[in-house]
């Protein structure tokens, strides 16, 4: 039996619905990839069937041999590959194989963070109460991916749709994040 970091928050997150669709998407496969050699990056992307993001603070997504996969830019030589649950062991092997002899590393970090999807026209606004990154659509279009702080926890923030933001938060901070988010919605729930 598996238990996700926010399983106890399912109902409380769902109750934000008039303001925000908020739900944990647990157990996603997540692999931290460190690589800087352009050929290795290209090869790794080709293996996945999804090219790695070349621009800072963006992510790429597509469908390949592992289904829907996203590749998040986390730093100049750091990426996070995310996919459906249960694929992490296979993907780790495949990625390590495609790195070949290039400098780099692949680490299964699937349970390191959990995923929460926020949906609705208020998504960006609610996050603006704790996130100093400019989330205006002109500054953070779909495809944006930043590592930043939300209030007092680190997050990875992906703009996955016009009104959809995906948050990756460290498992130990997940309940703080959920509590913060719930509290951030108080005013919007009080005054619709």
């Amino acid at each position, binding site marked *: *039996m*598996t*238990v*996700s*970091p926010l399983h*106890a928050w399912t109902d409380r997150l769902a109750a934000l619905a008039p303001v925000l669709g908020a739900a944990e998407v*647990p*157990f996603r496969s997540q692999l*931290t990839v*460190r690589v800087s050699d352009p050929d290795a990056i290209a090869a790794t992307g080709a293996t996945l069937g999804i090219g790695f993001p070349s621009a800072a603070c963006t992510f790429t997504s597509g469908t390949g041999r592992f289904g829907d996969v996203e590749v998040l830019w986390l730093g100049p030589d750091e990426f996070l590959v995310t996919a459906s649950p249960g694929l992490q062991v296979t993907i780790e092997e495949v990625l390590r194989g495609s790195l070949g002899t290039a*400098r*780099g*590393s*692949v*680490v*299964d*970090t*699937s*349970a*390191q*963070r959990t995923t929460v999807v926020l949906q609705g026209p208020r998504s960006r606004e609610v996050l*603006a*109460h*704790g*996130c*100093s*990154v*400019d989330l*205006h659509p*002109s*500054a953070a279009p779909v495809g944006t991916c930043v590592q930043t702080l939300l*209030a*007092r*926890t680190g997050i990875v923030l992906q703009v996955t749709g016009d009104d959809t933001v995906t948050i990756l938060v*460290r*498992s*130990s*901070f997940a*309940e*703080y994040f959920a*509590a*913060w988010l719930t*509290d*951030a919605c*108080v*005013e919007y*729930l*009080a*005054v619709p």
Partner: protein
Amino acid sequence: MNLRTGTGGSIDRNTLLHFTFDGRAYTGHPGDTLASALLANGVHEIGSSVKLGRPRGVVAAGSEDSTSLVQVEAPFSEPMLLATTVELHDGLRARGLAGQGRLAAEPDPARYDAKHEHCDVLVVGAGPAGLVAALTAARSGARVVLVDEQNQAGGALLGVDEYLDDRPSAEWVADVVAELKSTPGVLVLERTTAFGMYQDGFVLALQKRTDHLGFAAPAGVARQRVWRIRTRQTVLATGAHERPVVFPDNDRPGIMLASSARTFLHRYGVLPGSRAVVFTTNDSAYCAAIDLAESGVDIALVVDARPEAPARLAAECAARGIEVRAGQVVTGTEGSGRVSAVHVGDTRIACDALLVSGGWNPVVSLFSQARGKLRYDAELGAFVPGGELSTVRVAGSATGELDLTACACQGRDAGLLAAAAAGFTSGGQVPLPASDSRCTARSGLVLWRVPGDDDASFVDLQRDSTVADVLRATGAGLRSLEHVKRYTTIGTAHDQGKTSGMIAAGIVAEALGVELAEQRPTTFRPPYTSVSFAALAGRDRGDLHDPVRVTAIHPWHVAHGALFEDVGQWKRPWYYPRAGEDLHTAVLRECRATRESVGMMDGSTLGKIDVQGRDAGKFLDMLYTNMMSTLKVGRIRYGVMCGVDGMVIDDGTVIRVGEERYLVTTTTGNAAKILDWMEEWLQTEWPHLDVHCTSVTEHWATIPLVGPRSRDVLAAVAPGLDVSNEAFEFMTWHDTEVAGVPARVCRISFSGELAYEINVTAWHGVAVWEALMAAGEPYGITPYGTETMHVLRAEKGYPIIGQETDATVTPQDLGMSWAVSKKKPDFIGKRSFARAENNRTDRKQLVGLLPADPGVLLPEGSQIVETDRLPEPPVRMLGHVTSSYPSAALGRTFALALVRSGHERIGETLYVPVEDSLVPVTVTESVLYDKEGARRDG
């Protein structure tokens, strides 16, 4: 006395608001401030001064007021608010203050929050210049934020009855605001004070969102909000404050700035009194005199300090029967409480109001905070912005310009330039409004003070600081305005010297006989106006004050009655008391169960770092004092890390996962620090190394299974694993399945007992924990917390980083020379081990202490001395107790301690002062239990 006019002002006369002040009931109207409502009711004495107890009234109409401090008592107790900035609401209860308020004793029930905002152009101030700037920038397509501290836009226009383009100025303002609010990408924030301006376009602003609603404020809506604005360009249209003139007895209630009296008239429909004297150094006060005269105030006299009165305005006064005396000054006042008469030379004029204008001070606080240079403008008698900043422009009267159309023109230019600098060049030209104002203000005489009784001539009314105080400061040899400010406290009150600072500078310059242009003004610092701590704290209070980090198994601990210990931000189970147990009995039980059978704990908080790459071994050899590259795949080694000073910073185990892959554990509290430490070395010193480090702390749930029966329990849940001592040696690891879940099991021990550390993906943490509990049931498996862990490891003399160590303890001090490689050519900290200081034999070293009385528990932190009687101070301290516990295994208390020359003192008796006695203790080796290590293999 009713001083409310019959018509006019932006108040709702049809609605009555009830409020009390100093216990008496009054009424006012929506649109009033507490100050305007009090003045309308004839209440001119608001409080009294902080040192001298002299009566204090209302000097100005806005946030620059120096005197009208009140304590609001309802809806919620708040100290030190200005009556001029408290919007009136029904049920408001307030009290005047004698200079100081008191904080509420009960928690503030209101919600406060914060919001981040980003824009291309931030405009501060919604007066004519700010409005035109904002509109110009908005029309260019830039993202614009306009903040203004008032409840409605207009700035100085709110206090006058001017017509713009032949219609009331309010209509022009309303049109501009309407266009701004309907323009996408424009945010207009009313009741919002930009109070701090920092580097890189970062501006903090406080919005008062529901204060004005009083008891009707909706629950759940943040009362105040701190806006954290990041802007590319800023236009400061912060306006100007009227400056008083200092003269003897200038502090009586009823003595008010002339423009503020005009504001009370036009904005609130309130007269300053029935008979007023006007004292001015410039033209602007004439408008106040004329407007008030037309509203029914008897203007007894206009005293103009200039040699000649302005002909046209003097004629207008004459037409209204107002006497003007030029070349004269107010030399004193009378009144018990409110002013009752004014002295002009030998003449005594009875009146109940004295309206003063000494010119205008541009509001340069934010510009100065942004590191803008200020320049003294001798004509204006004020410091003005002395040059542009690349991202900050100033427009309107904040530059010293006082003509309305010129101010608006500056606003348009600043708006255009700011938008263009942010990359927005399109957009229509905003037409400039033309005013019908009769006053041109820039014709003043700079006059700081009228000579007279210096002890009664107040410079800072809130601080009771006088001209005499300033002269005492200069007389004592102080020359810098900063020093005079601190000596006299002028400008240190709630108003931060908005009306007093410039005058103080002028008087200092006069006294020293220097030019003001040579003086550096005092530094402007945030906040521009007072901000409550509640607003700054926002939602970061209660449960959200500091994140609580929990492990995957945390819900089980809660459900099973664990008490928790804070370790950094983590909640760790401290102990699991059964009914009737205290810490002491629970821990003895947990220790005994673990040493005698089997116990387990949640070790998931340990930091875990995956280290990969061809040079991983080489890298770890540099980080740890001992050798890691020789570790064989499948094996585990304990290691110590030192800083460059050779002092221990962390310890933990290193397991070799593969030829090019290790997993490093760190202490709970140092996980992030050690990862940063590794990255720092990799990125700055050893970028050539092929190594990458990745935190996997939270990927794993980690469960130490400890005690002689742990092997049996593990065997039961890991049928595929050969748990025999031969197949699964100490300091090795195996990948297997535990309770049907892929797991990595390490045979390591932090207690000296046979022990395994079971690592599974965090999602499986609870399931595996419960499976172990079930499998251990026949053996009485006992969950234990950090306290028991501490006792078990202390019995074995294992140090805890941060408890046995501070930043002054070497591995050798801990008795861990065995963990310091003699073979490695270099590693971090190595060179320090050769220092003479590191090789002193009298360093503090880790030892055990056994109190002579086995029941005495030494308090942790106790000092250790050599003699059984305390000598005369100073007493030589030999060290201190780092850990101290009762031990079930030893059947007595024991302690660990850092003691000078500790290793040489083993066997000696030393003394520990505990309250009034000296407890004799025997120094022992730090390992007190199972010295031969017989229990390790079960």
